């Protein structure tokens, strides 16, 4: 047993780390292969740094986090950002389009006690990230696959093509074509199992842009379908809105308005 795994959390909902604990069938086997060195959600035991693998959940949104992530980077051989927050800033990155003080005022009676950075940003904006696992939350099977690859000494790999490909492989019916509903599948990265179309709704992009994502073209198509600019903006302004391709669409169709 020589792989030391650490799990860290920044601004997030815990859902991605929870996916590790959701591996009920494998978790005991897994802990036999990997030594959990730091994983506050699962154990109060801590091991000394350095770590072989650091899984990082959450976005960077406070000054303290900015420093902390650098420390983690320095102490980890392999740093993997997990989930939409860590790879694209998460839902909380919606505030990046607004003035931060407004936000504090809206939520807290005494906003002067709240200390936060103006923007919520992905880990890779601060430190070098070795691998990114997408999703809000990450897919459990994918996560297990990635851990398995690391265990055998392989740099992790997961497909980076469109959700549509997975959607068809799963045998779903295209809801854009058969229902006329908008779907972000054609520009979103596969990995979730094409869940939303499977449940008869359009993908809202929680796995973020695929390789060579044509987000702007799809947005244009939505407009041609009769959607308003505002509706199009909201579609792209979701859980991975701060990824570059989606951000472009949001700015183009009125990101600064609200």
């Amino acid at each position, binding site marked *: 047993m020589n792989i030391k795994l650490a799990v860290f*959390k*920044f*601004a*997030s*909902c*815990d*859902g*991605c*780390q*929870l*996916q590790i604990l*959701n591996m*009920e*069938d494998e*978790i*005991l086997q897994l*802990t036999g292969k990997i030594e959990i060195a730091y994983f*506050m*959600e*699962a154990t*109060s*035991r801590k091991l000394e740094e350095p770590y072989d693998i650091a899984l990082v959940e*959450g976005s960077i*949104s*406070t*000054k*303290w*986090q900015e420093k902390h992530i650098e420390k983690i980077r320095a102490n980890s051989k392999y740093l993997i950002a997990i989930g939409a927050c860590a790879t694209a800033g*998460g*839902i*909380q990155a919606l*505030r990046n389009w607004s003035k931060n003080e*407004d*936000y*504090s005022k*809206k*939520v*807290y*009676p*005494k906003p002067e*006690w*709240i*200390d936060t950075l103006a923007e*919520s940003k992905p880990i890779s904006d601060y430190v070098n990230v070795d691998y990114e696992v997408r999703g*809000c*939350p990450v*897919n459990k099977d994918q996560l297990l696959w990635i851990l398995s690859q690391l265990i055998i000494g392989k740099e992790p790999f997961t497909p980076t093509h469109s959700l549509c490909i997975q959607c068809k492989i799963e045998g779903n019916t295209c809801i854009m074509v058969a229902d006329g509903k908008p779907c972000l599948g054609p520009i979103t990265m596969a990995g*979730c*199992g094409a*869940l*939303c179309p*499977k*449940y*008869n*709704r359009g993908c809202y992009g*929680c796995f973020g842009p695929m390789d060579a994502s044509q987000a702007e073209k799809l947005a244009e198509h939505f407009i041609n379908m009769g959607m308003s600019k505002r509706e199009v903006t*909201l579609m792209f302004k*979701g*859980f991975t809105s701060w990824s570059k391709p989606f951000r472009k669409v949001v700015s183009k169709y009125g990101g600064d308005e*609200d």
Partner: protein
Amino acid sequence: MVETKIKVDYLARVEGEGNLYIKVIDGKVERLEVGIFEAPRFFEALLIGRRFHEAPDITARICGICPVAYIFSSCRAMEKLFNIKIPEEIEVLRKILYYAEWIQSHALHVFFLHAPDFLKVDSIMEIAKIHPEITRKALKLKAWGNRIIEIIGGRSVHPISCRIGGFYRIIKREELKEIYEKKEEMQNLAKELLEWIMTLNIPKMERDFENVSLRNDENEYPLIGGRVISNKGLNVVEEEFEKFIEEFQTPYSTALRYKIKGRGPYLTGPLARYNNNYDRIRGEVKETVEKQGYQAPLRNTFQSIIARAAEIYHATLEIGRLIDNYVEPQKPYIEVEVKSGTAYGITEAPRGILYHAYEVNEEGIIEKANIISPTAQNLAYIEKDLLELIPELLKMNYNDARLLAEQTIRNYDPCISCSTHFLKLKIERKP
């Protein structure tokens, strides 16, 4: 005199990371603070300008452990505002989904987070070494809960199938077969685990707290909607709830705190639910707990672990019954007609009552949002509980004191990350 400041670096109303700071001078408590310093994520602000139907998906992201609760509180609120009557079939499916989340979340807390305290170990991995069979069974039960959410919701964390008015598509009876087939096994497991939990060495510590929970008109254990009641006379409808509580903020925490106006801190969550609705818990559960003398009311917060285990058992039984009653609906959801106004909704999240309120304009755009999570509501009471524990703590050595304080906080299952790792307990003693 040393002044210590805890920097507020973290978030609002949701569980997350926190710390505890206690300062005692000359045996007198100078300061006692449970600081939750999760980074603020400003959910209420970022809901503004979004359309009503986005609320479930967005608020689900407040918590990865109980997303279903967030989804249903927001659905409940919007549906009430729009005067939608949810058909029985859809209601049944929702209840199954909600109970499944209880199972998953409670199992996580009971076995991963809380049980190690009672067994004086670090983690479930350690429990697995002492009680491999129990661990295996607990994992199985938890997996079943997750699997149910996966089948009905698409995935267990942040499910995608729910919408205002129902579901995005009809869930076929056939799809539920897989989980139904295991129900008896799971009910037996749940019973066995409840019995095991009751054998744990639970500290004795009676308190008189105000139990706040929902209570419904259907004569059922509460899940979605109902009146908010307490053992001290609170009895209000969802719309009125906020008027009876008072919020306050402390400089050491991003989380707001709440108390009942004119009375003070209160308790919500499984223990409160169990105490307030014991008459509606399944007979099989009652029989099991009463055999060991744990009928309601339980006045010891350390016994919350029993309430949780009892609710798991109750949930497994109810899921069986609900699937029996499930008829596929004609349409997966009820069409919505937008109305402007304020939407209020409360449901029973695994950790207690979860309050959502939205102001929606005539276009269906959210203009204001207010969400009060169970953990935020419990915070003030946690501090009160700790305060009462101080004399006890001062008698102990540092490590035991820290452990007891941590365990006390974990009794409330404040949230997964804070319940295990947040304690940097500082007890300053001045002779």
